[in-house]
């Protein structure tokens, strides 16, 4: 028994150009006959659909005039380059301009002795950061004064279930290593 018709062969069967050897298979195979018949029916369904309404007769004259105008506009003002070409050229030009500006600014700001002004700037920035840190630290320590120690301990303490859950996900090797660490820790505590 030969194989069933491939998609290409099924289309050849639709077009009545199937080679004789495959036509023999089609003649004998109910499944392939059904497949080709379904394709033929679907093609007829599509063909039967009235597809393009005819535009008004005036449309064609108008269309020719539109094409003529568009073509003339194209000759006078050719379409711009593709967007990516524009981006590449704009980016290249911008990069060149930016390089020149940065070089000019750098030469103006740091002409002869670049070390001293940089140190001055670093000191100024550090002073400003210290002032900020002092204010923030005062705020945090003020807040801490309002907390009760027991409340903090309760919030920060892990639940027993969390410890069990963490232990559950360890492999046997990890559990063995963990047991060794515990034993070592306990031994240190005993000493």
């Amino acid at each position, binding site marked *: 028994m030969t194989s069933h018709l491939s998609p290409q062969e099924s*289309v050849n069967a639709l077009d009545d150009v199937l080679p004789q050897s495959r036509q023999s298979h089609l003649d004998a195979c109910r499944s392939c006959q059904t497949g080709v018949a379904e394709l033929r029916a*679907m093609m007829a369904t599509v063909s039967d*659909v009235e597809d*393009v309404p005819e535009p008004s007769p005036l449309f064609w004259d108008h*269309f020719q005039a539109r*094409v003529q105008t*568009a*073509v003339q506009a*194209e000759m006078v003002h050719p379409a711009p380059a593709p967007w990516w070409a524009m981006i590449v050229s704009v980016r290249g030009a911008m990069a060149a301009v930016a390089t020149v500006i940065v070089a000019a600014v750098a030469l103006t700001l740091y002409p002869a002795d670049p070390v001293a002004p940089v140190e001055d700037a670093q000191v100024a920035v550090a002073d400003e950061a210290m002032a900020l840190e002092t204010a923030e630290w005062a705020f945090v320590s003020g807040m801490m004064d309002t907390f009760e120690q027991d409340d903090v301990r309760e919030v920060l303490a892990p639940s027993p279930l969390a410890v069990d859950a963490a232990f559950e996900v360890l492999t046997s090797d990890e559990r063995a290593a963990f047991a060794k660490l515990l034993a070592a820790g306990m031994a240190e505590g005993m000493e």
Partner: protein
Amino acid sequence: MAQDVTAPATTLDLAAAEDRVLVAAFLAGSQDAFQVIVTRHQRAVYQVCYRFVRNHEDASDLAQDVFVRAFKGLKNFKGDSALSTWLYRVGVNCCLNKIAARRPDTEPLLEARHVDPRSDDPFRAVARSEKATEVRRAIAQLPPRQRATLLLRVYQELSHEEIAGILGGTVGATKANFFHALSNLKRLLQS
């Protein structure tokens, strides 16, 4: 008898000239030759575009775009296929770009519901119209290459070789596309 391509464009009867003669005349500088190309192929190009977008406004814009591209690109036309096939290729590319950039098609309401009340059997006409709407909607849901293959094969009645030339790829792949287009259409219409 073959026409003399080298004859000056002004001495040719452009309206009766073969496409290749018109192309040669256009490349030699005859704008009238291009006008004849537009007149000769505008209906077919418009119909291809309409089948993809299913509304007059977009179809006429796309058809105009096809001829503007043709005007710019005819110098690259090698003449190894018919001019109509080359124009279809430009048109299909324009249409595939267009439908890739927008939401899936919806049937325009007026076109979908228009039934001629003077027809002999209005009930049959309504049923036929609804069936046509279903089929068009299903075609619009096909993947773009399957859709293009189906439209070019069924409505433009192009050969699989011509469709392969338009869409790119082998004749075998085009046949497989056509098979899958019909199979998917059947599935979509049954669902």
